Each structure stands twice: as structure tokens, then as C-alpha cells.
């Protein structure tokens, strides 16, 4: 398979292999944003202050908006929102399991650490999509990136703030210990990985992104007095969790969350999720 530099065609022009690779790139991205947002919204009306409540709500809505952009590209291939989300099976979802983990009551450190680990990854991922060969993705990366900068800033500021005293840092440490292995699922490859890179859908491999991510996250956390299970020469000392998400395997928390957010849709036997906007690019 040769590297396609002239770009892939319109959704209808893609070969089966190309379409498979584009879908494999988009699905974990869309689901990741959607499920992360779902967890963030749990903080609404429960955040530490009114100001932090407003900020986390903003971020949740940004992520939902991004999910909508990516789902919309999957809809170009004939899928419906109903099929992708509301009438899907829990195991159809391919988000990395980091984002589905439950939030402990009052565990604001979890929200911040999760956000930091995810946003740092997302930033790298989006940059690897700026030069994508699939023009429909390229069109949307800029908008998403602009918002992600704020998220990263938000997470870093809060991390510093929480690490300013011992009890706060201890909370962050606990959250980090729990979440770090799951953050590695952000880089779990699927069977389509080689095709995605070969076709130029993403300009960097997940393996390379993981190295870069470690290069950012490890020293930064270290500067805050936090340690991560990574050796001096950069070797990760913890195993990937059994459930990585991108292959459809999920933790026991996922079916429960899925059940909750599809409750109304099922109860009302809707058949079609209510649309308020025709085109998500309008927002």
C-alpha cells in the first residue's frame, strides 16, 4: 500500500479499505469525546465553586460538540446517530476505557487528572490530523484544536493549584495512580493502525504519539512532585488494563453508564434522536 499524498476522495469515492481505515480512525475519537463529556457533565451543579462549575460545563459542551463533528463524518458513510449511539450495543463503542471510569463522589482530582491526561493526548492526536489525507477531517481539526488549547490550560492550572498543598497533592496522586494505566489505552492500536498511517489519514503513529505524550506528561507531573510508573529511560512500568476500549472491550462500569444515558430513548421507543441542527458545522 503506497502513501497517498494527493488526498482521499469524497466519502462516496473511497475504496472499502480506505473507508474502513477512516472509520477506524473516527470511531474511537467520536466515542472518546462523547463519553468523556458524559462523565464531565456529572460535575455540573456539583463542582467545588460556581466558577469551576461553569468552566467544567463549558468543557463538557465543547467535547460534546467535537463528538458531534466526528459522528457527523461517520454519518457520511450512511450511519445514523441512532445506529451509532442510541440503538448501538455497548460493545460497539470504541472509546479508550480511561474516559468511561466512574467518578468518585467529590473526587475533583480525578476530573482534573483525567482531563490533563486526555487533553494532552488529544492535542497530539489533533496535530497528527492537521495534515490528514481525508479532507473532511482536515476541515474540522482547526475548530477542535482552538477549543482544546483552553482545556489543556484549564487542566494544567488546576493541577498546579491542587498540588500546592499536601492534602491536595495526595488526592491528585491517588487519582493519577488509578488513571495512569487507563491513560495508556489512549494509544492502544487497532487492526487498522497500519492502514491509517499508510493512507495518511493520521500523519503520526499511535506508538510515536505515545512517546511524545510521555515526553510531555512525565516531566510535568514530576515538576509537581508527582511520580508516574515510568523508568528513567522512558519505559512504562505498568501493564495495559485488560479492557482497552478501542477493541470493544470495556470495564464493568460501561454497560451501566450506557444504560443510564439511553434510558429515555428506549423508554419512549423513539426510533430517531431529536435533531435541533441540520449541520453541526453551523455552531
Amino acid at each position, binding site marked *: 500500500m503506497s502513501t497517498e499524498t494527493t488526498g482521499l476522495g469524497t466519502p462516496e469515492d473511497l475504496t472499502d479499505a480506505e473507508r474502513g481505515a477512516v472509520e477506524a480512525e473516527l470511531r474511537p475519537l467520536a466515542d472518546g469525546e462523547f463519553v468523556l463529556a*458524559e462523565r464531565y*457533565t456529572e460535575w455540573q451543579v*456539583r463542582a*467545588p465553586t460556581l466558577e469551576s462549575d461553569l468552566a467544567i460545563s463549558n468543557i463538557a459542551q465543547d467535547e*460534546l460538540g467535537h*463528538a458531534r463533528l466526528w459522528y457527523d463524518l461517520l454519518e457520511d458513510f450512511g450511519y445514523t*446517530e441512532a445506529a451509532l449511539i442510541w440503538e448501538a450495543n455497548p460493545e460497539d463503542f470504541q472509546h479508550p476505557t480511561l474516559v468511561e471510569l466512574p467518578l468518585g463522589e467529590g473526587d475533583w482530582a480525578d476530573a482534573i487528572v483525567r482531563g490533563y491526561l486526555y487533553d494532552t493526548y488529544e492535542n497530539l492526536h489533533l496535530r497528527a490530523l492537521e495534515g490528514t489525507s481525508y479532507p473532511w477531517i482536515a476541515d474540522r481539526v482547526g475548530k477542535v484544536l482552538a477549543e482544546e488549547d483552553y482545556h489543556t490550560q484549564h487542566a494544567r492550572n488546576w493541577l*498546579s493549584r491542587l*498540588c500546592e498543598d499536601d492534602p*491536595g497533592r495526595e488526592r491528585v496522586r491517588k487519582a493519577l495512580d488509578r488513571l495512569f494505566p487507563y491513560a495508556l489505552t489512549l494509544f492502544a492500536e487497532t487492526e487498522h493502525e497500519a492502514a491509517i498511517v499508510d493512507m495518511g489519514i493520521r500523519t503520526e503513529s499511535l506508538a510515536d504519539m505515545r512517546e511524545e505524550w510521555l515526553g510531555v506528561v512525565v516531566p510535568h507531573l514530576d515538576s509537581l512532585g508527582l511520580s508516574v510508573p515510568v523508568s528513567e529511560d522512558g519505559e512504562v512500568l505498568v501493564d495495559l488494563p485488560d479492557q482497552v476500549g478501542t477493541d470493544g472491550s470495556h470495564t464493568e462500569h460501561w454497560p451501566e453508564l450506557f444504560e443510564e444515558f439511553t434510558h429515555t430513548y428506549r423508554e419512549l421507543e423513539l426510533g430517531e434522536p431529536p435533531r435541533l441542527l441540520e449541520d453541526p458545522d453551523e455552531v
Partner: protein
Amino acid sequence: MDIGTVTERASPRQFGPKDDLPEEYRKAATRMIQFHANSEIMGAYLERPFIRQAPSLDRKLAFSAKVQDEIGHGQLLYRAAENLGVKTRGQMLDELANGEGKFLNCFHYPMTEWWETPMIGFFVDGAAMRRQATLKKTSWEPYAHAMDKICFEEGFHIKHGESILRELATGSRKEQELVQDAFEEWWPRILQFFGPTDDQSTHHDFASAVGLKTMGNDELRQAFLNAYLPKARKYGLEIPEYPRINEGEDGRYEVVEDDLDWDEFWQIAKNDYGPGRQQIDSRKAAREAVAWVRESMETPGSGPGSDTGDTPQAAD
């Protein structure tokens, strides 16, 4: 300024933080705005589960945005109240958590299903809009100013609530039945939104005299019924037989007050109604669970993060 002067000068947006206002005025205004701010928070608390339960991406986004707006309104209103110099925001939030802070009757009732949401999102918000529009002319300028933004955003909320109502009312037979059931359950509470008639209202006279309130409960309820009874009918909702509402020849509606449960209303007004108490207490527990964050923010400077220089302003 004494009360006499305040009464004399009372007019829209007349008084601000620079005025030397008598304690009675400042206390009355604080009570009113604190109640309003508390209601924003408790309304948001009641509606937050429906961000999760919303049946589409668009609805989820809209619900999340709405709940966020309510928190923003709370923030604005606490600021407008704080300016009166009677209570700090922290005090008011503590009072709300402790069950001393009062808030709207409708937010004391449990709401568990999606098809109930237009009862708040359309009818209660619609009723609130009636009252809030008149508060743009309240005599405490910071309150009136907050109301400009709040009314603007509230307009979108009501449209969203109406859109959910329309969807249910024009949906399957099951949806229509569910929304009718919800309406019957919520309708008497909605009628009580405006509180007791003016002659029963404890704080009405003074608040009117000093221009804090510009329209009485009776008149507001009348205006609400004029607008919302036809809207309810338009969506095929059947108005329950009780509480009886008699339509006079002049087009005015008269609610038979005895058909409403005023004992329950006063119990709610004291924060003694069981389900409302549960809302208060579960919110209190959620607030206490993050007390450690607020404490941590108050005692900075003991760790390696303190010299990084990126003071977390954006985190707000």
C-alpha cells in the same frame, strides 16, 4: 437615606451600591435576590440528571448549556445580592446547604423522567419569565442589570422547553399520555408558583413601596394564565378539572384557592417538605464532598506547584 426618601424616590434602577440605603431596604432586597439566586441553583440541581437522560446529542448539549446558564444566573444574582452589604456569597451558599435558604416551590418536588422536563422548562420557566421581566424595573440597579442577561437567556430555555413539549405532544400515543400525566401532576404546583394572593403575602407591601417589586402576585399569575392556558391547549394538554379555574366575562381567570394545597405550600416554604428536604440534603452532601478543594484553594503555597507562576485564573 431614610425609608421615607427611599419610598419617594423609588423607581426603576434607582438605587445602587453608592447609595446610603437604610437597613430595611437592604435586607428586603437581599431576601428577594437571595431567594431568586437559590432558586437558580436548586432548579439546576433538579434538572441536572436530564443532561444524562436526554435522548439525543443535540438535546444533551442544550440541556447541559441550560443547566450551566442557571448556575451563571445564580452567580450573577449572588453578586447583585452581595452588593447590598448584608450577606456574603459564602454565607448565602452555606444557608442554602444548611436548609435555611429558601427557594421556589416547584423545585422542592422530585423530577425523575424526561417527559416531566417541559413542566419546568416550559411552564415554570415561562412563569419565571413573567416575573423576571417585571424585575428589569426593580429599584435595585444591580438586580435589574442581572435581569437583562437572565431574561435574554431564559428566552432560549423556554424555546427549548417548548420544543421538548411539542415533540412529546405530537409524538406517539405513549408520549402523549406520559406528558399529560406529568402535566396533571405539576399543574397545581405551577399555579402556586406565584405564591399566595397578595393579601396573604407577608413581604409584598414593603417590597412594592420601595420599588423592589413592580407587580403583585395576582397580576403576574393572571398574565401567566392568559398566555399559558392557550399554549397548553394548543399542545393538546387537557387542563385538569381541579384546581378549578373560572374564566370571567372580562377574560380574567380566577383560581379557586381552596382547591390548592396551601398546607403543602407553606411546608415547602419552610423547607420542611420531605422530597425538597432530600434535594437540599443531597446537594449539601455533594457540596461537602468538594469542601477539600475550596480549602486547598485557601491555603496555597506549600508545594512545588506554587512557584510555577501559572496562577490558575483560567481555572475559574
